C-alpha cells in the first residue's frame, strides 16, 4: 500500500506527524513537571529570569551572577531552614512576551515559590501584571519604573527609583548647607528629567533656591552657553544628573570657565574616572559628589567580602547590577526564611503571603546598603555618597541612612 503514497501525501503526512509530535512534546512537558512541582526533594525552588542573551544581556547576566552567587553561599551555609534553595534560570531575551511565558512556566510548570526578576523595565511590567493574580513574591533587582510595584503587593525592587535618587541628593545638599543650586539635565531622557524634577521639588521644599534649570539635547558636546548662564547665577552647587560621558565634559568645561565649587550627581556618574577610559581630569574632579547603591570602593565589611567573593567566583570586579542581583536574592531569601519559620506548606497561598509579609516586614543588610520596605514595594535603603581622591580614585564619602 505504501508504494501508492504520492509525494504530496507523504509531505502532508510528515507535516501532520511533526505537528502532532510538537503538541505531544509540549503537553508531555507540562504534565510531567507540574505533577511533581513544589518540593519533592525538600528543596525550595526559586526562579531567576532576565535577558541573558540579546541587547540587554550585560545587565541580565550581571544580575544573574549576583543572584546565583548569593544562593550558592546560602546553600553552603545550610540553606533556608535546612532546605537547599534550587534556582531555576530562564532567559527572556529582553522581550516582554518571552518574559510572560518564562514567568508562567516558572510558576505553572516548575512550581517556584519566589522569583528574582525581571531586569529591564518593559518585561518587568509585563511580569508584574501577570504575577498579581498568583500573588507570587517577586523581587526585581533593577527595574526603576514607578509602575512596576503598583500592580499588587507582591512585587518588590532592590534598587531605588530615579526620583528617589534626586531626593537623596537634595537631602545631601541640605545637610551640606548649600543655599542655592543650579541644575543641568538632558532633555528627553526620563532618567535625567526624573531626577531633576524630584531634586528641585525636594530642595525647594527644604528652602534651597534653585537658581537655574538648564537643559541640553542628546549628543551635545558644548555646554558652555548653559554653563555661563548657570555660573552667572552664582550657585553653591550644580546638579548634573546624567551619564558619565556627558558629566565628564560638563565638569571639564565648567572648571575651564573658572567654576571651582561643588558638583552633585547620581549613579550615572559611576565610571567617570578609573574605568576603561577617564572622562574628566582627576584635578577637575575635586568637590564632586554622587550617590549610588554600590561601589567597589566601599570599605564596609559586607561590601568588601562581596567584592572578593565575586572576584573569586567569576574573575571580574562586580558592577552595580551584580550587587543588586545579589541583594534581590537576599531579600527574597529573607522572605522565604520567614515563611519557613512559620512552618507553612510550600506552594500554598498562605506560604506565598508569608513570603511577601516576610519581605515587607524584614530588613536585610545587603551589599548595596540596608534594605527595608515600609508599606510599599519601594525600598527604604541607605545610599553611598561617593567622591574623588586627588588622584581621581573613588572614595566613599559617607553612607546616608534612609
Amino acid at each position, binding site marked *: 500500500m505504501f508504494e501508492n503514497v504520492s509525494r*504530496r501525501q507523504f509531505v502532508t503526512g510528515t507535516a501532520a506527524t511533526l505537528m502532532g509530535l510538537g503538541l505531544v512534546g*509540549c503537553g508531555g512537558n507540562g504534565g510531567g513537571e507540574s505533577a511533581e512541582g513544589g518540593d519533592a526533594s525538600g528543596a525550595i525552588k526559586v526562579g531567576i529570569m532576565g535577558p541573558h542573551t540579546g541587547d540587554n544581556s550585560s545587565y541580565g547576566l550581571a544580575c544573574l551572577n549576583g543572584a546565583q552567587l548569593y544562593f550558592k553561599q546560602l546553600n553552603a551555609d545550610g540553606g533556608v531552614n535546612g532546605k537547599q534553595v534550587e534556582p531555576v534560570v*530562564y532567559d527572556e531575551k529582553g*522581550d516582554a*512576551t518571552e518574559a*510572560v511565558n518564562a514567568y*508562567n*512556566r516558572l510558576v505553572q510548570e516548575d512550581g517556584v515559590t519566589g522569583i528574582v526578576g525581571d531586569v529591564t523595565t*518593559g518585561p518587568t511590567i509585563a511580569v508584574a501584571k*501577570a504575577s498579581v493574580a498568583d500573588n507570587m513574591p517577586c523581587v526585581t533587582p533593577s527595574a526603576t519604573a514607578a509602575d512596576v510595584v503598583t500592580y499588587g503587593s507582591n512585587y518588590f525592587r532592590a534598587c531605588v527609583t530615579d526620583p528617589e535618587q534626586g531626593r537623596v541628593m537634595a537631602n545631601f545638599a541640605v545637610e551640606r548647607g548649600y543655599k542655592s543650586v543650579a541644575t543641568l539635565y538632558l532633555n528627553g531622557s526620563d532618567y535625567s528629567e526624573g531626577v531633576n524634577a524630584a531634586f528641585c521639588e525636594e530642595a525647594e521644599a527644604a528652602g534651597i533656591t534653585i537658581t537655574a534649570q538648564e537643559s541640553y539635547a542628546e549628543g551635545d558636546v558644548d555646554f558652555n552657553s548653559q554653563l555661563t548662564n548657570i555660573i552667572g547665577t552664582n550657585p553653591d552647587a550644580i546638579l548634573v544628573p546624567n551619564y558619565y560621558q556627558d558629566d565628564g565634559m560638563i565638569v571639564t568645561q565648567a572648571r575651564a570657565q573658572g567654576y571651582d565649587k561643588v558638583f552633585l550627581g547620581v549613579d550615572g556618574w559611576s565610571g567617570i574616572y578609573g574605568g576603561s577610559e577617564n572622562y574628566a581630569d582627576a584635578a577637575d574632579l575635586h568637590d564632586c559628589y554622587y550617590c549610588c547603591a554600590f561601589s567597589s570602593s566601599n570599605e564596609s565589611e559586607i561590601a568588601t567580602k562581596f567584592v572578593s567573593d565575586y572576584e573569586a567566583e567569576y574573575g571580574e570586579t562586580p558592577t552595580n547590577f551584580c550587587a543588586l542581583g545579589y541583594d534581590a536574592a537576599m531579600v527574597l531569601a529573607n522572605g522565604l526564611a520567614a515563611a519557613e519559620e512559620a512552618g507553612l506548606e510550600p506552594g500554598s497561598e498562605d506560604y506565598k503571603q508569608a513570603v511577601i509579609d516576610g519581605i515587607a516586614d524584614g530588613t536585610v543588610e545587603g551589599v548595596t546598603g540596608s534594605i527595608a520596605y515600609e508599606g510599599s514595594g519601594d525600598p527604604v535603603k541607605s545610599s553611598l555618597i561617593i567622591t574623588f581622591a586627588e588622584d581621581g580614585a573613588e572614595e566613599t564619602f559617607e553612607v546616608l541612612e534612609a
Partner: protein
Amino acid sequence: MSEKRPIISTGGRGPAAGGARRTLPMPARYAINAIVVLVLLVLGELMIDGGAINRYQSTVLEQVGIYIILAVSLNIATGYLGQLPLGHAGFMSMGAYGCSIFIIRVSEFLGVGARDFVTGTPMALLLVISGLVVGGLCAAIAGVIIGIPALRLKGDYLAIITLAFAEIIRVVMLNIDDVLGFELTGGAAGLTGIPGFSSFLLVFGCVAVVCFLIHTMMKSRHGRAILAIRDNEIAAEATGVNTTYYKTLAFVVSAFFAGVAGGLYAGCVGVLQPAVFGFMKSIEILVMVVLGGMGSMLGSAISATVLTILPEALRAFSEYRMIAYAVVLIIVMIFRPQGLLGSYDFSLSRIVERIMNRDFPWKKGDAPADAAEGKEVSADAER
C-alpha cells in the same frame, strides 16, 4: 514566488468522468466548517476551564493564535499578491498602539475598570472589539499611506521601502510624545496600563473570523483579480484588472489584519515598547509564511504554530533552543524549498465530498478522473 502555479483554482473540474459527482451545496459547506470551528473553540475553552491546559500553555496558545493571524495576513501580500513586503511589524505596532490607546482612553471615559476586562462584562467586550477594529483601521491607514507609493515598485525595491516605513513607524512611536507635548505612546519606557483583555476564546475567535474573511475574499472576484496580478501583471492589466487598486487593496487588507493581531498582542502582554516591533519581528513573520508555503493558509497557520511552540518547548535547553529553531528552518528550506505545504490548502468540505463519493486516495484506479491528477486543488475551508 518563483513558481507561478495557480493556488486557488476556479473549482470547476471540467466534465467529471464517470457520471454525476455528488457535491455539497455552499450553505452546507459553511455550516459544516462553522460547526467544526465552534466545537474546537468550546473544546479548548472547556479544557482551559477544566485545568487540562494550564495558564502557561494557554498563554502560549494565545500567542500561537496571534502569530497565525499575522502569518495569514502577510500571506495575502506575499503568497496571493506576490510581493515581498518587509514591514509587517510596523502595521502590527500601529494596530497595537491604536487599539491600546483607544481602549485605555475610552475605558477611562466610560469608567470601565481593569477588572471588567477579566470578567468580560458586555461593555468591556464591546470596547475590546471596537478597540481591535480601531487598531486594524490605524494599521490600514498606514497601509494606504505606504501602499500607494510603494506598490509602484517591485521586488527588492518594495522590500526596502516597506522596511524603511516600518522603521519610521517605530521611531515615531519612540519620539512622538516629545513632539506632541503630552503622553501618548510612552516613548522608550513603553505604554503601560493596558488591560489584559486577550483570552483563548477572543484570540481564536479572531483567528476564525480572519481566516474566514480572507478565504471568502480570495474566492471572490477581488481575490481572483489579486491572483491574476501575481501570475502576470501585464496580462491582468490587459484583461481589465485595475492593478493599482487591487494591489493597494491586498496590501491594506493585509495591514488591517496585522493591526488586529497587534491589538490582541497588546492585550496578551500588557505593555508595549517600540523596540519590540523592530526589523526582526517582520522577518520572523515572513519566515513563518515562507516556511509554511507561500499562498497556503494552512501552511502559514501550521508554521506559525510550530515556530511559536518550538522555542517554548525547547526552553529547558536554554541557549541551544535558538539553534534548534534555525536548524529547523534550514532543513525545511533545503528539502522543501517551496515551503512545508507548497501551495496546497486544506479543505474540509472537499474531504467530506470525497467520502460522499467514496473517492479515497488509496483507491487509485477506480477513482474519478481528478483524484489521480496531481494538481493542487482549491481551498474550500478556512483551515
